[in-house]
């Protein structure tokens, strides 16, 4: 994978990083939900990139569209009522690029691999992506885990989906031999979609020894993946039901399920919101360790800006279905540009605000069935200009790797006098 050619990339709608090859590109993503009061415009022209082995944080308030953006990667948004009027999520596939045959061209962003649109995939193709290429960890592990199955049974399902062939091979059954009845029955037993009768048949005297071997291999893998998420006593934990585990432990189980197939992209939707701070810090440390170990990219969704500093490489601040600011994490903390980002920072109680007032952001998110024509933040913005409600600002690159969608930073580079005053005020 040669990343040296990235500078030549002609497409300029998103940030270009000279360091890492592109993994996914979201282009002009629009998502509407049809309701009886009209279409809720949940996403309005979202474009961003995810590079390999980096952590991107999506930050914003409830209802800003960060979760539906992430869910769109896996076609988890129900359509209808959801509808994509425009947009693509291009994700790097394992095939060679059709137009250049692996040499690298503009079509495949010089990677030599085809980029497929995740939104256009059939459900069968999508099933090949889920878990294997892109995995997801949800907010509330209590709800995401099945309460009636033991941890082993749930993790085993991911193991069977992703290591089906390997397990059969190790158990001494050639997966290709479909004409052999024993192999076929055992193949059905080791398949993730096995039925109750597959299990009964596998108990037959001739099959039982091989079935036990398969069980042992699956168990070995389950325990191994649990151990990698630093669960002490994986053997014991694997026999437990979710309700017997603490919240932090449940989230570790979720993470291990997501990592079974060593996905290229792991989407974490507020994975620590339901947890205590002490547990949260351990889960976050665990996730960054695993990122190094598995070379995975992270798309990390959170509403907590104070958390972002510890985990993310780049931050995308979203507001009401549109991107407000895209930035490297240090730049965002040193020099936040968008008034909404200032509001988010000012909302966090710190040592300086003690006893005083928090600035916060006045008002609440606009009605998305009829959002403002221009900048969606204009209804709450402290620095609103005359043309803000009517003209869409669009993302403008202000410094390298730092884009903002705000009329305070005009695209032609002319600087309104107001900006300087605000920046000093903000510091």
């Amino acid at each position, binding site marked *: 994978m040669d990343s040296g050619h990235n500078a030549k990339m002609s497409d300029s709608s998103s940030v270009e990083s000279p360091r890492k090859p592109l993994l996914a590109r979201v282009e002009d993503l629009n998502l509407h939900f049809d309701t009886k009061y009209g279409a809720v415009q949940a996403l309005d022209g979202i474009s961003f990139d995810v590079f390999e082995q980096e952590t991107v944080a999506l930050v914003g*308030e*409830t209802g800003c569209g960060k979760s539906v953006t992430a869910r769109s990667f896996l076609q988890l948004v129900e359509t209808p009522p959801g509808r994509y009027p425009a947009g693509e999520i291009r994700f790097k596939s394992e095939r060679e690029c059709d137009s250049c045959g692996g040499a690298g061209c503009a079509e495949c962003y010089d990677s030599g691999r085809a980029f497929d649109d995740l939104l256009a995939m059939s459900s069968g193709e999508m099933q090949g992506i889920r878990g294997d290429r892109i995995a997801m960890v949800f907010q509330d592990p209590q709800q995401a885990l099945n309460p009636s199955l033991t941890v082993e049974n749930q993790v085993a399902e991911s193991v069977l989906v992703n290591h089906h062939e390997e397990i059969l091979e190790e158990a001494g059954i050639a997966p290709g031999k479909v004409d052999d009845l024993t192999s076929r029955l055992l193949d059905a037993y080791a398949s993730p979609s096995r039925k109750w009768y597959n299990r009964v048949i596998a108990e037959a005297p001739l099959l039982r020894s091989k079935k036990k071997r398969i069980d042992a291999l699956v168990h070995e893998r389950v325990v191994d993946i649990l*151990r990698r998420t630093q669960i*002490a*006593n*994986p*053997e014991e934990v694997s026999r437990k039901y979710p309700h017997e585990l*603490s*919240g*932090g*432990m449940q989230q570790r189980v979720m993470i291990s399920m997501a990592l079974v197939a060593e996905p290229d992209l792991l989407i974490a939707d507020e994975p620590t919101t339901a947890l*205590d*701070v*002490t*547990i*949260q*810090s*351990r889960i976050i*440390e665990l996730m960054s360790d695993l990122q190094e170990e598995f070379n995975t990219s992270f798309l990390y969704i959170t*509403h*907590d*800006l*104070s*958390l972002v*500093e*510890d985990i993310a490489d780049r931050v995308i601040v979203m507001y009401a279905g549109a991107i407000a600011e895209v930035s490297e994490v240090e730049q965002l903390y040193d020099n936040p540009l968008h008034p909404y980002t200032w*509001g*988010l920072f*000012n*909302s*966090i*109680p*710190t*040592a300086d*605000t*003690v*006893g005083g*007032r*928090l*600035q*916060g*952001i*006045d008002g*609440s998110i606009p009605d998305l069935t009829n959002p403002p024509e221009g900048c969606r933040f204009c209804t709450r913005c402290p620095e609103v200009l005359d043309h803000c409600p009517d003209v869409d600002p669009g993302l403008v690159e202000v410094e390298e790797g730092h884009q903002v969608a705000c009329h305070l930073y005009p695209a032609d580079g002319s600087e309104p006098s107001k900006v300087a005053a605000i920046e000093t005020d903000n510091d």
Partner: protein
Amino acid sequence: MTSSTQSLEQTLASEDPRDAKTGNVLLQAHGLQRYYPITGGPFKRHIGDVQAVDGVDLRIERGKTLGLVGESGCGKSTLGRLLIGLDQPTAGSIYFDLPEDAAAEVADLEATPAEERTDDEERRLTELRSQYEINSLSGKARKQFRRNAQFVFQNPTASLNPRKLIRDAISRPLELHTDVPQDQLDDRIVELLEQVGLGGDFLYRYPHMLSGGQKQRVAVARAIATNPDFIVLDEPTSALDVSVQAQILNLLDDLQDELGLTYLCISHDLSVIRHLSDDIHVMYLGRIAEKADRTTIFSEPKHPYTEALLSSSPAIETGQSIHLEGDVPDPEDPPTGCRFHTRCHKVESFCGWNGKDLYNLLKRLEDRDEHARRVFGAIDDAEYDGFDATFTFASGADVDDVARLLDGDNSLQAHKPALFDAITDVTVRGNALDVSFEPTAVPVCESVAPGHEVACFLYDGE
């Protein structure tokens, strides 16, 4: 209209309970304990207790905010419910609205163990209790207390009845606890809604038509409807976004100034606690670990648990990173001695180790340390009696060898030297091994500086 507003103001002024009150100490609790019984077997026999709150003393002055912080399951919400009379303590007493001298007298009397009190003292205490202790109050005084103490719950969606209008939600406490006449009820409700930053147009809305922040404002309006002195805020902002959280925190601040409210703020979020509170109590597993004012807690935390809590909060810069091992222990069977010793990074041999800790350590290290694997694999049965434990080994296991492992220096001991230092005696009896640990009392809150108390053995005698 003006005349009606005036008469309303008069009604409110005359019934304002604060006029009659002079007490400086709004709330004082002694030896609070709440055990939830666990029953089992066919006859629902009492087989144990969940020790949700165990021996908590606290004192809240009028107009101040006390912050209660701790991990989930540490008993902070239970404590909040006890203080407001939503739950009865199994032991201990809560005094509400005490004059300064009575407060000192109560503190004195409560400090004496019950069996050492003279008859006179006992009589005086009963008298004080019937006057101020919330669970001993008589009917009318108890109703007065109910009006004076209110609660704001964590989840506004769950605490507002979805089938009742906002007007009904707020009018109920007004009807029950105040003498606002029926025809002025709406005026008063609008006034309350305006006080929390909403307005009259919210009267005839249902909770689902409101955003989370607006719902929490309604919950606050309902709590201040009866002109209370004391409000318990149980995680008031944890269900809200940061920007909305900021609005609610500002509102709570304003109301405190305006109405002279006293808050007990319960939260697991240290930055919220720091913003709202004057004094902070850190709780761990049913006990208070550290009490201090806000600046002291954040600048010079003494208890190792407070240090760990501060370091793991991303919003607070501490410059150190402490990771707590393992999970919060089961409150049904809390650790002996200091309850935090199983996870403490500064733990010493005198912190209260026992056989169960040894067993858990072996279990945890089973697949990382060969000694642990050997010992743990051979254990057949374990019995604990306070600081003594008896491990029975499978026949054929070399018990002497295990005894030597517990005694000498080896890789097993390196994992938790303090635990092995605490072992005072190891005796081999056939297949069984008796292990004794250093007996330790329970750490109590001791003053390390004026207004700063820590329940930790490391600060004993300072």
